[in-house]
Every structure is written in C-alpha cells, then in structure tokens.
C-alpha cells in the first residue's frame, strides 16, 4: 500500500522535474534555434495535451459505462489532423501572418479587430473551461484518494482532509506551478518553448504509463482474447450497434470543435507552431498517438469490470488494477501518468486563458486608464501584463475549484468534460466562417456566439448543478415560471434526446443559423472587409515578392471595393466595365492584370495622392498584414489630403481677402483721383475768381467809357489786389503741395516760440486795430524753446490771428491769446468770440479750400488754404494744431509743440 504522503511527495518531485525541464528547454530553445525542441516530434507530443486525465482515467470509465463511445473523442481530432491541409494549415498560416495569440484574437482580428468580440470570446472561454479545470482537479483528487486507499495509515497527513480540501490544495498547487511555469517572461509571439518541452515530456510519461498499465493488464488477463471473451461471458459485451446514434455524432462534432477551438489546443497547435511543415508530421503522428492511448482502454475497462468488486469506480481502474495486483510501483507510475495528463492540461489551459484575459480584457483597460500618462518604460507594461496573467491564472483555477465544489457529488468524469467542449464549440462556426466565408460579419459572429453561449448555459451548464441545487432540479422538471417548452433539457418541446445532444443541437443550430442569416443582413466595415479578404485569401495571395505586388493576385472584388471607396461607385464601375470589355469577359469574372492594377493605382492617385493609392492597393494586392495602425495611417494620408485642400481653401480665402484689399486700394486710388479732380476743380475755382474780377474790370477800363477818375482808380486797385491775391494763392498751393509731399523747406532747430508769437501779434496789430477788435493777452509763458523754424511758426500764428479777426462777426470782437508750458509741451491758445465753427465743419476746416463762414467784413484774401498749411507746418515740427473748446464764445485754436530741454 502506498501512503498518501509518499504519493504527494512524488507528485511534487515530478512537478519539480517538469520545472527543471521547462527551464532547460527555454534556455536551449533560445540559444539553439535548430534544437530538437523545434522538431515536429515535440510539436506533435505537445498537441497531445488534448489527452487529459479525462482521457487517462475517464476514457476507461467511459468505456466501462458506454462501450466504444469513448472513441468518438479521438475520432474528431483524427479527422481534423488527417485533413490538416484543409483547416489547420490555413489557421496556422493566417495566425503567423497576423500574429494571432489566441482563438479570441483570431476571431477579433478577422471580424474587424473588434475588441468587444474578443472580450466575449474570452469570457465564454473562461466560464466554459471551468468545468474542464474542475474535471482535472477531480481526477487528481480521486486518484490521490484511490492510491492512498481507505486505510488510516495510508492517508497519512491527509487524515481529516476531505476531497474538497484536497482539491483546493491541488488547485492552489497548480496555480503556483502555472504561474512559475508560464508567466516568467513574455514572448512577443506568445510562444513558450520551455513549457512546450515539459508538456511533450508529460505526453511521453502519460502514454508510457497507460501503455504499461495496459500491457500489465493484458499480461495478467491472459491476452486480449481472454479478456474479451471473459467479459462477454460475464455480460460486459461491447455492443457497438447500441452505441451508434445521436450521442456518437454529437461527441464527434464536439471533439472536432474542441481540437481547434479549445484555448490550449489553439495555443499548442497554432500559436506555438514554429514551422508550418510540422503539421505534415502531426497530421499522422497525433492520430497515431491517440490510437496508442486508446489501444488498451477497452482491455483495462473490461478487465476491471470483470475482476474488480462491483461498485468500484471504473474511472480509477488504471490505478486500482495494478494496486489490486500488488504492483505499487506500477500504480505509482500510473498515478504519475494521470497526474501528468492533469497538470499539462491545467498549465497550458490556464496559460492560454490568461493570455486571452490579459490581452483582451486587462490590457485594454490598463491602456485606457494610463492613456494620458507617459509610457516610456516598456518594463512597466511588461510587469503589468505578467501581474494580469498571474491574476488570471488564479481566477481561472478558482472558477474550476468552485465548479468542482458545487458539482462534486457527480461521479463520472467524461460528462463534465463534454460540457466544456459544448461551450467551446460555440466558437467553431465563427472560426470556420472566418477562414472560409468572406461575407461573415462582426455583428453576426458576435450575436451567434452570444446566443450559442446563452443556450449552452441554459441547456448544459445550468443542469450540471442539478444534484446540488433543488431550484435547478425543479427548473429541469417544470421549466422557468412553469413554461415547459423552456425546460433546459427539453427546449421547444424537443424531448427524449440525450441532454448533451439536446444542448449541442440547439446551441449550434441557433449559432450557425444566426451567423448565416445575420451575415447576409448586415454590412461589414472597411476593416472587416480588408481582414476578411486577408483571411479568406490567405493562400490565394501566396508568397508575393516584396515591392512588386503588381504580380499579386488581387480579386476584382477587392480592387473594386477600394476603387469604389475612393472614386465613387459610378466611376469605379465604369473603370471595371471598360477593362472587362477590353479583356472580353463578364465584369464579375474579371481577373485583374498588372496593367489594370497599375492603371487603377493611377486613377486612385488622382484622387488621394500617389503614396496613399500605392499603400492602399499594396494592401489589397499583396494581402499584407493590415494593422489598425496602417489603416489609421492610410486615413491620415487621406486626412493630409483633406488638410491640404483646406489649406488651398485658406489660401484662396487669403487671395479673396487680398483681392478685396486691392479693390479697396483701387477705390482709395479712385477716391484720391477724384480728390485730385476735386482739388484741381477747387484750384480752378480759386484762380478763376480773381481772374473774373481782373478780366471784367479790365474790359470796363478798355472800353474808354464815361468813367470818372475815382472809379478808374478804384477799378485799377481792384485789379491789382486781385492779381496779388492770385499770386498769393499760387504760392500757397505750391507751399501746401510741398508740405503734403512731406517736404520741408526748413531745418528744425531750437527756436524761441514766444518770440515768434510776439512777432505775429505785432504783425497783426494793424489788422486788429482796423477791425476795432480787443486783444486780450492772457497768461504768457516765459521764453520757450521748441524744435522748429521761427518764420514758419510766425506764419502759423499770423494765420490763426488773422482768421480770428477776419471771421469774427461779433459787435464787440474780442480775441484772447494765452501761452503756457505744461508737461513738456508749449501750448498756445488763440480764442475769439466770433460765431465759432459749426459742429459739422469742425473736421472740414483743416481741409484745403474750406473757408467756413465768410468774413463779415468782406476780406476774401484767403483761398481757404491757410489752416491746411498751418496744420502741415506744425505737424512738420512734430506738434499739433487743433480746435478746442475755448474760453470765449467763438472758436479756439490750440498749437502744441514739444519743449526742447536745454
């Protein structure tokens, strides 16, 4: 009798050996790419992770209960691997090209890189695999208990620990091992050479163990024939005719689905594949391995049934038969074999699932949360991924343990495994559609998988709790709310079927139906269509020479899709029709020639630029990996075109603005031109006026009429005065013209402004007195130096004073002149009590020829240029001349000049 402590110690030591193997395998695989670890043999052996403890123990139990049915579990994978050319090769090629990391990644990638679909698939996988994990826990627990036996001595340190505690211990141990094995580092391709090496080793161990037990059984049973005939005598005949039926078909379908879609099978077959040619070997070697595994199942089962006491668990025959024969060593070997099956499955399954969970659920969330932060250190992300994986492994094993905990009363192993198979089978239609059906759409696949999963949950997962939950048991009998056609094992009145068959029938039927119908009624996004053709045409594209994609074999459809998007439907259709007519085929059957592709590219280049067109067509024609980034880049290029056109628009807007400015300038010029006309007209008027008097009086004088001497004298004086006026006018015009051109006939120099003002007052004295005007000299500044010219400044003051005299119509005309120095400015105010300047004329008075009101005294010597000239003169002295509110009733002109600091 083996003691439990010894068995457990052996198991731990075995795991330690596995760990060393994995460690060495990793090192070897890294240093030597051509090592045997990359051989097809190791690859094939790693695929045999398919044979779990369910196979090791459960198949025997299954055979004991249902005869040959256990074979169907091997039949499905055999079909798939013998026909590896059909599905597996395609799957491996695509996954290599697209760097697929899991079945969730595969579906997500094919259906437009939808993360939502990946999350759905991951969640279903985690939930669906839970029973499978539980199965392994149960197998290990049962096997330990079987080996340790019922004796108190044998139980050793397990005394007082029930199967739940044992299972928990096993689960915890497995979690620890898996974390140590699978999450030491991250490989970009998600390949784990060390783990694969250990798995391959375990495959050898479990096969050897089972074969050893089989040989032993056949030996002590007296050969195959004896065993079979004895069994037949005792009524344990293998009735194949009974076994063929719906359950056969169901389990075979399920095993076909499982060998492709099970996360761990996908991992070893597709992700860990380092060479496509290995499939060629695995195509026959893996079925051979399974045949060897199943070779002794029937003899062991039959021999157990015939020799073991009634009521003993047939699942444990592989252990109990050697023990019954006193072969403890063989029993221990068999235990290690079963233990190998369980550990390899748990380790790989949780690694595969943890990759899915971390890649599709944890990382997107982490990346979203840290999107704004600097992620310069890849180290942080790596450790984050590892933590996520470890957490996922604990979660997955916990789920398995809880499933075990709730369903521990059910004793058979095989049905539990099939529940998981049925869950995973929900991915199969979508996977097949992904590989072969171009029109399968994201929405259809998502809906189909979701519905299939719900039906599975209702019809298969839920009923497995029947034995522990009275509520579930009631549900099975009455249906929810008494709706009998919703009974989980008799949906829509489909009664009388095997529960598994029933669940698989409804879930897969609805799944496939929805996938097909919804795909036909939904449209694909651009990315979906691109990915669909990348997947479906993976071989059609073949190995295309880099940069010479013109020789590639794009379908007319793909090209049309691109052309349509860029050129619009009408233009694209026209292009294709013309080409088809030239070649002489139906447009639908058009096989695009390199010439045509070149022409198409040029057409596209016309719309989106050469680079974008080339990139876009290259994607379609060579069928290269189209990452989201590249698509975004393409979109960016398009965006650049848009931006470019926006810039063009902006430029043309600027041109419009410039044109408007030119128009404005032109208008200004026209305005200036009309101002010039106006000026000339004014000059003409001002010249004509004195000329009129001169001419008229000259004619009067020439007529020699009856003029008296006084009249004659007066007319001659008038002519003389008007001549002087005319001269003065012309002088002023020339003066103003020069000033307006910016010329200055003088040099600004420090000048005594007060002296200039005094001189002006003196000059005007006669005029003031003639008018009878009162000149009030107010506050006066002391002699102040300004930057200017004395004569010109004097001219300004004379102009202002004489204006004040000439235009003052008051009865008692008054003028007040003040000057002060204030904050660096010399200010002269010349105010009068005349009529002032009307509001509307205040701006105009500084304009040329603006005279405002005529002087009441008839003095018309000015031509209206005085103020304009004065203002120009002051401006040339960097001062100002303006009209300000004055102290008297009339106008007040202010001259302001900068004081020169001496």
């Amino acid at each position, binding site marked *: 009798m083996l003691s439990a402590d010894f068995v457990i110690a052996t198991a731990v030591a075995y795991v330690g050996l596995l760990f060393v193997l994995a460690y060495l395998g990793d090192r070897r695989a890294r240093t030597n790419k051509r090592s045997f670890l990359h051989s097809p043999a190791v690859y094939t052996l790693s695929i045999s992770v398919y044979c779990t403890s369910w196979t090791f123990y459960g198949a025997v139990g299954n055979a004991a209960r249902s005869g040959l049915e256990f074979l169907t579990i091997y039949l499905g994978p055999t079909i798939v691997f013998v026909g590896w050319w059909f599905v597996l090769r395609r799957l491996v090629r695509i996954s290599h090209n697209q760097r697929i990391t899991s079945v969730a990644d595969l579906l997500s990638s094919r259906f437009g890189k939808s993360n939502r679909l990946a999350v759905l698939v991951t969640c279903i996988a985690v939930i669906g695999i839970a029973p499978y994990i539980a199965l392994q826990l149960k197998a290990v627990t049962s096997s330990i208990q079987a080996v340790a036996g019922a004796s108190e001595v044998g139980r050793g340190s397990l005394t007082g620990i029930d199967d739940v505690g044992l299972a928990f211990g096993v689960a915890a141990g497995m979690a620890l091992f898996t974390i140590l094995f699978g999450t030491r580092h991250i490989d970009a391709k998600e390949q784990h050479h060390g783990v694969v090496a250990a798995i391959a080793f375990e495959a050898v161990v479990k096969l050897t163990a089972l074969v050893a037990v089989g040989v032993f059984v056949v030996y002590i049973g007296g050969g195959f024939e004896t065993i079979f005939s004895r069994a037949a005598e005792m009524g344990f005949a293998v009735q194949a005719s009974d076994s063929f039926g719906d359950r056969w078909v169901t389990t075979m379908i399920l095993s076909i689905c499982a060998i492709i879609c099970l996360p761990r099978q996908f991992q070893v077959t597709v992700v860990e594949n380092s060479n496509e040619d290995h499939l060629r070997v695995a195509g026959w070697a893996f079925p051979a391995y399974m045949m060897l595994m199943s070779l002794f199942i029937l003899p062991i089962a039959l021999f157990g049934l015939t020799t073991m006491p009634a009521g003993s668990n047939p699942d444990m025959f592989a252990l109990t038969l050697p023990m019954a024969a006193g072969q403890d060593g063989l029993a221990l070997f068999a235990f290690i074999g079963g233990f190998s099956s369980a550990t390899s499955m748990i380790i790989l399954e949780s690694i595969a699932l943890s990759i899915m969970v971390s890649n599709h659920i944890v990382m997107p969330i982490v990346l979203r949360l840290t999107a704004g932060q600097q992620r310069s250190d890849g180290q942080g992300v790596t450790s984050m991924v590892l933590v996520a994986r470890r957490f996922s492994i604990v979660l997955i094993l916990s789920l398995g343990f809880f499933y075990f905990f709730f369903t521990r009363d059910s004793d058979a192993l095989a049905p539990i495994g099939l529940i998981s198979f049925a869950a995973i089978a929900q991915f199969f239609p979508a996977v097949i559609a992904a590989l072969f059906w171009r029109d399968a759409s994201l929405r259809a696949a998502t809906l189909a998988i979701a519905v299939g999963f719900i039906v599975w949950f209702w019809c298969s997962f839920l009923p497995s709790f029947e034995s522990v939950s009275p509520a579930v048991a009631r549900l099975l009998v009455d249906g929810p709310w008494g709706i009998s056609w919703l009974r989980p094992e008799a949906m829509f009145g489909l009664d009388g079927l095997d529960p598994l068959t029933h669940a698989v029938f409804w879930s897969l039927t609805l799944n496939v139906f929805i996938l097909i119908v919804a795909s036909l009624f939904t449209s694909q996004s651009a990315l979906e269509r691109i990915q669909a053709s990348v997947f479906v045409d993976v071989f059609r594209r073949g190995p295309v020479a880099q940069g010479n994609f013109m020789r590639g074999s794009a379908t007319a459809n793909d090209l049309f899709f691109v052309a349509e998007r860029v050129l619009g439907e009408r233009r694209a259709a026209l292009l294709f029709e013309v080409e088809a007519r030239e070649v002489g085929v139906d447009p639908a059957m058009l096989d695009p020639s390199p010439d045509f592709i070149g022409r198409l590219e040029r057409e596209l280049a016309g719309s989106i630029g050469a680079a974008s067109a080339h990139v876009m067509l290259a994607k379609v024609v060579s069928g290269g990996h189209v990452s989201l980034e590249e698509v975004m880049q393409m979109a960016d290029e398009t965006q650049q075109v848009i931006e470019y056109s926006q810039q063009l628009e902006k430029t043309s807007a600027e041109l419009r603005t410039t044109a408007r400015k030119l128009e404005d300038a032109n208008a200004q010029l026209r305005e200036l031109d009309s101002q010039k006309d106006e000026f000339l*007209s004014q000059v*003409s*008027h001002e010249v*004509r006026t004195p000329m*009129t008097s001169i*001419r*008229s009086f000259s004619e009067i004088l020439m007529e020699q009429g009856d003029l008296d001497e006084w009249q004659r004298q007066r007319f001659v004086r008038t002519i003389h005065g008007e001549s002087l006026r005319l001269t003065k006018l012309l002088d002023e015009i020339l003066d103003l013209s020069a000033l307006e051109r910016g010329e200055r006939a003088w040099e600004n120099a420090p000048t005594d402004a007060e002296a200039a003002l005094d001189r002006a007052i003196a000059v005007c004295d006669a005029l003031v007195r003639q008018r009878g005007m009162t000149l009030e000299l107010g506050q006066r500044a002391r002699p102040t130096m300004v930057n200017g010219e004395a004569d010109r400044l004097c001219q300004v003051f004379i102009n202002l004073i004489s204006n004040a005299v000439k235009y003052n119509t008051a009865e008692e005309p008054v003028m007040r002149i003040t000057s002060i120095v204030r904050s660096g400015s010399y200010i002269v105010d010349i105010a009068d009590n005349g009529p002032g300047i009307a509001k509307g004329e205040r701006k105009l008075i500084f304009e040329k020829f603006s005279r405002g009101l005529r002087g009441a005294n008839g003095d018309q010597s000015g031509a209206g240029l005085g103020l304009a000239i004065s203002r120009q003169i002051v401006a040339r002295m960097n001062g100002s001349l303006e009209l300000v509110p004055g102290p008297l009733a009339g106008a007040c002109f202010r001259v302001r000049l900068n004081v020169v600091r001496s």
Partner: protein
Amino acid sequence: MAVDILIAEDEPSILESLDFILRRAGWSISSVTDGDAALDGVRRLRPRIVVLDVMLPKRSGFEVLKSIRADAGLRETPVLILTAKGQQQDRRIAEELGADGFVTKPYANAEVVGAVRRLLGEDAPR
C-alpha cells in the same frame, strides 16, 4: 419795389463788376451775397431775372435754383447761372434743374449782358 435783376454773388469785386456793367446796360439791380438772402430776395423783389453764382455761402446756387423752380409763383423767373468751376458737370446739373442760361467765369462783360438781354427778351440795347 420791383427790380430788373437780382444778383447773388459772394465775391465782392465780382459783384461790383456785375453791378457796374448791368446797371450801365440800363437795368435796375439788387444784390445779395448768400443763398438764403438770394431766395428771400427773389420772393420779395420779384426780379425779372436772377443772376446766380453757384458757390454761395449758406445755400448753394443750385439749391436756390431748385427752390425757385419748385415755387409755383416764381417758377417762370429766368435764371442765369454763373460758375467759376466751368465744368461740364455743373452745366449739366444747371440744365437739369431748369437754368435758363449758363455763364462761366471769367466772363466777357458783353457775354453776361447779352445773356441777360436775351433772357429778358430785349433785342435792342436801350
């Protein structure tokens, strides 16, 4: 006190010359020096003809002309426009407003006298 001619002219020496030559030709003269006074004079003095300068203070000669033509009682009064600008545009405006004659400064004395005589319908010099 009706007069033959109302002269509206703001340039004193021109006014003096006009007054002299027209008075010498035998007509009675009254004169004003701004637009308001001109319109007022036309209404008050009912002259047989108005000699009107365009560039008048307060109210331009054209405005005065427009007012005369708008007044039913004064509408028939002949108006001779004087302008120092001498541009075609002024002549056109004057004609549109209904001026009867147009003389450009500087004028020949005989030209003014002839124009007034023609407008008054007096063929022979008195």
